[in-house]
């Protein structure tokens, strides 16, 4: 597409034309070919219209006006709390005229004397948690399902589909609730309350109806403090119907007894509740994530059925997080029938340790932690011994010790084939000799989904259920399934020093500073996690999962670049693996 070369006037005329056509009901593809703009640009124009009306459609000339400087973090925090105070409804106050949108936040910022673009305003909104991503994202009902019938019917009746959701907003020591309605076109309407009650909820819906100018067809999930009875009440008042979806995840704060808890089936409330047991129908075609999920689960079950004493290696990273999530699914309703093993070098980030302990407890896993005490006693550290020796003694040797000590015969690992060249050729069931060596030339053939788990007493198997996942698959799945991950993946102010071209976080006082090095606070995040002295950070403002995915997709260097241990030679991983590194 070469629209960037068009004079801005031509471009704006096309955008306006595109919006008119969309409003007339033409399909995205038709509009795109008629006006000569790419589909995403049409979508963007439409979005701009939703946010700012006809005036919002035209794009401004590029470049930022000289007056606007980047705001300091302090100033941003101040703005956030002022905005929350302004927006928060008092108890009993009704939301009729208090609906907020991105446009209104923009307007408000301008009123505060902060002249920023719409895009910047919406970025700030996002970082303050006031512009959550739409729950509709990633949801595409398959034909034949109740949700598909519901959405089709809503369109036929020209009702506006809105997705309802709630989000906790922390301000000082208090937590408020953001009640949101997302339209399919990306408009987000919200109010901020202390707690959602039936009255507020119903008033909110009528305010939204007024704002969009059409009757609503609300869709919501059932685990977020929105009660079924409120929706029934609203239906009785308006005669419209709503769609309730099963909860995506157990909510952490679903302690209210009248809340319809997770895993209830999908129910359309316009049907009589008695025969509403309309379960999820199979999708027309399995998506790649569904196929990958099914394959990983198959592999895990196969191991549990054939191994004598399996264990899951837990590295606390995002791949491990996905692996844990899949393990819970594979054996549900039984708890996963194996413990977690964390091989601890003692040099992980403090936040990783905290996360590890809480997640194992939450998911009901037994957690084993093993350290190479001998190596630790000898004072092995990445600073004094170099990354290679450190990894060998505290990771590779420690792993072997732990497997031998507990007599584990099969160990799950979260490695993926897209990570590195030698992994691309490794089997899902990867055999290790009694000395834990990998023999790349004598790998067993692996056919169909028939895994051969037979082995001699002294041999062991490493099993990689995520072999066929890519980094993007992992992130998409985390996003889709709301899987918790270590906060270090998100951008935050952290004390760092720059060393050998890498940004290293000073996570504790064991890190010797070189001459001229002073830790400074930077907004950074980590694309991969390991021992903090060996893990490079990237400067980033990505504070949400979608930000991370966006950043990753636009990145130009591969994930493992932040990992210092892989830097040596391109055959180094192959060598490490042969020696028993996972």
């Amino acid at each position, binding site marked *: 597409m070469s629209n960037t070369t068009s004079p801005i006037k031509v471009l704006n005329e096309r955008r306006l034309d595109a919006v008119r056509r969309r409003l007339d009901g033409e399909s995205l593809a038709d509009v795109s070919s008629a006006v000569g703009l790419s589909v*995403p640009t049409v979508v963007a124009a439409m979005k701009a219209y939703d946010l700012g009306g006809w005036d919002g459609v035209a794009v401004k000339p590029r470049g930022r006006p000289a007056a606007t400087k980047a705001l300091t973090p302090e100033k941003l925090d101040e703005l956030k709390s002022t905005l929350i105070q302004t927006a928060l409804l008092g108890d009993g106050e009704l939301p009729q005229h208090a609906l907020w949108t991105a446009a209104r936040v923009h307007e408000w910022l301008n009123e505060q004397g902060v002249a920023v673009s719409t895009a910047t305003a919406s970025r700030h909104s996002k970082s303050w948690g006031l512009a959550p991503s739409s729950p509709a994202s990633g949801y595409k009902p398959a034909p034949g399902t109740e949700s598909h019938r519901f959405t089709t019917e809503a369109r036929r009746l020209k009702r506006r589909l809105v997705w309802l959701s709630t989000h906790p907003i922390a301000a000082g020591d208090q937590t408020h609730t953001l009640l949101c309605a997302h339209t399919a076109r990306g408009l987000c309407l919200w109010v901020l309350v202390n707690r959602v009650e039936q009255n507020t909820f119903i008033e909110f819906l009528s305010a939204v109806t007024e704002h969009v100018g059409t009757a609503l067809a609300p869709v919501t999930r059932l685990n977020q403090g929105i009660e079924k009875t409120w929706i029934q009440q609203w239906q009785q008042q308006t005669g419209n119907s709503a769609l309730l979806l099963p909860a995506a995840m157990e909510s952490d704060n679903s302690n209210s007894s009248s809340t319809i808890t997770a895993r209830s089936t999908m129910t359309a409330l316009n049907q009589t509740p008695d025969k509403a047991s309309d379960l999820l129908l199979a999708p027309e075609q399995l998506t790649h994530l569904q196929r990958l999920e099914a394959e990983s689960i*198959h592999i895990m079950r*196969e191991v*549990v*059925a054939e191994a004598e004493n399996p264990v899951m290696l837990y590295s606390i990273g995002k791949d491990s997080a996905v692996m844990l999530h899949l393990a819970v699914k594979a054996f549900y309703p039984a708890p996963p029938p194996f413990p977690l093993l964390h091989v601890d070098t003692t040099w992980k980030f403090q936040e990783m340790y905290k996360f590890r302990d809480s997640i194992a407890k939450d998911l009901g896993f037994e957690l084993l932690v093993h350290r190479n005490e001998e190596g630790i006693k000898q004072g092995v550290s990445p600073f004094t011994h170099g990354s290679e020796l450190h990894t060998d003694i505290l990771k590779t040797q420690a792993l072997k010790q732990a497997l031998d000590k507990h007599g584990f015969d099969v160990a799950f690992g979260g490695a993926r084939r897209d990570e590195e060249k030698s992994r691309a050729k490794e089997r899902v069931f990867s055999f290790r000799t009694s000395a834990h060596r990998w023999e790349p030339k004598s790998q067993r*053939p692996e056919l169909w989904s028939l895994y051969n788990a037979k082995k001699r007493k002294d041999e062991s198997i490493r099993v990689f259920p995520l072999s066929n996942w890519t980094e993007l698959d992992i992130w998409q799945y985390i996003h889709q399934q709301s899987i918790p991950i270590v906060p270090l993946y998100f951008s935050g102010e952290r004390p760092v020093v720059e060393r050998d071209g890498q940004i290293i976080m000073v996570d504790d006082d064991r890190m010797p500073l070189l001459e001229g090095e002073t830790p400074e606070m930077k907004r950074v995040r980590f694309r991969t996690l390991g021992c903090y002295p060996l893990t490079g950070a990237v400067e980033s403002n990505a504070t949400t999962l979608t930000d991370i995915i966006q950043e990753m997709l636009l990145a130009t260097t591969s994930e493992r670049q932040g990992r210092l241990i892989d830097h040596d030679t391109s055959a180094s991983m*192959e060598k490490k693996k042969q020696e028993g590194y996972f």
Partner: protein
Amino acid sequence: MNQPNHDLIASDIDAYLNQHENKSLLRFITCGSVDDGKSTLIGRLLYESKVLFEDQLDAVASDSKKWGTQGKEMDFALLVDGLAAEREQGITIDVAYRFFSTENRKFIVADTPGHEQYTRNMVTGASTCDAAVILCDARQGVLTQTRRHSYLLSLLGIRNVILAVNKMDLMNYDESVYDDIVDTYQAFAKDIGLENVTAIPMSALRGDNILQRSPKMPWYHGPTLLSYLETAEVNDEHRRNAPFRLPVQWVNRPNLDFRGFAGSIASGSVKPGDTIRVQPSGKTSSVARIVTQDGDLAEAVAGQSVTITLADEIDVSRGDIISTTENPASTADQFETTIVWMHEEPLHSGRPYWLKIGTKTVSATVTQIKHEVNVNTLEQTAAKQLELNAIGICNISTDQPIAFDAFEDNQETGSFILIDRVANHTVGAGMLHFALRRSENIHMQATDVNKDRRSELKGQKPAVVWFTGLSGAGKSTVANIVEKKLAAAGHHTYLLDGDNVRHGLNKDLGFTDSDRVENIRRIGEVAGLMVDAGMIVLTAFISPFRSERALARSIVGEREFIEVYVETPLAIAEERDPKGLYKKARRGELQNFTGIDSPYEAPESAEILVDTGTLSAEQAAERVIAELRKRGLLEP
């Protein structure tokens, strides 16, 4: 292709994610001769779909200088040749898996080697694929390797096959070159039953007809490679129309109130209320719930991993297949199959292997190798054993009935692997064709006089005392003394050795590994009959292979089989050389002589071990008798 994507990522990441979470997945394999440009093609696909990062490209650029074969240009092949050994030799040894995606699909590519000695790797890679791309060098046309790969793909039932006529740039994009190759190929494809072949002229190096239609070949009107791959039907969709099958992987029993059967749906679909049959037991029930952590399902389809519960308490365990009652799987214990052999140690008929089909593992033996198929000429030749990479039509028999479908009807329930029982390697891959209705009509005649009655009459406990060891170790000598002692004590005995077996029952057998296997199988069967007759049987054979001794043990029965390892260092046995055989073997006059040019696999856990290097024959015989007493087989 990626530019609009980048716009979307930057402007509306939610819309992008929405689009990309709902992609489908296609697995395909690339195969072809050594220099047809497979790795270049994959490198090109990765490069064009922008999944390569700058640091990876930098690494390739520096590797290109070291190992590249494209002069100054970037050698895409280096992107995919993973192991250091491979890069040095410039060939692809093992299957490598690569990933890329377009707006509509995610792709997993199995990159497999072309040489004949890597047939097993190609079969491995192809077994999980929905589609295959066969590369063919436009300068070379259809080669032997092209034919071999096509045959393997037809064998594995790959339904979408692309003939990629590559390097068209080197033939001036000439239509007639392409037409000739396609004509030759189509005629051949028809012969081997490969249907649905799509031919595409291309240049992987220059990018012609890979993503974008090549302006240099205006005469070609078919799809580009990627547009074909984006629309090819994946196996899951195809399998959804087959009858319902769920091989049970694991019984989920967290408490007394829940009993679920977990597994991946091999084919078809299932809903609560459907009536089902559990096989091979044949019991029926109906589906109560389809349980997943995300909530119960109203329907589950091929490719999903689920847990189902049944309305009735019936016996179901790992390895069973849950089928629809309308069209259930078959059960049998003898089959005709095609086997692809994957190990350096050849397949011997008569030797027992583990056979894993679905989630079931049973013991199986190849009862007959009907013929071997020459993968290059497709000729059928007689064979007594299958060497590495050989393909044979074999009859196979399992030690218990298993549920199955013909591979043509259902790849998931008609495919199996063979596993070596001693070393545990995956040694073969197989496809079931049909059941041999043989043993079905041969019922055991229950006789009134049975083994117990016969042994009672003889006043003894029947057993097989199986002597094994090198030639010259003293097996026959010791066995002879043991028999004399037993006879003196009034026992009914029989000594089977080379003299009375090789001259009669087994005189058709030689000394190749295959014949040795068959020799021992027959002896095992005869010894089994004699034990049934109430006899104490002594056998004195080298019986060099662990797996055949294990087979004999399984025929006779664990309790009545006593393995005696007559141990002697090779040097001592060779010095004794009672029949002058070692000397002959050393002179090269005797082939396949155990200890010289044929291996002896010493027992790992024989019941009795006698070392004739230190014990006399008499002492060794005493030790055997004492041990039999200790085990309660002889009166004290």
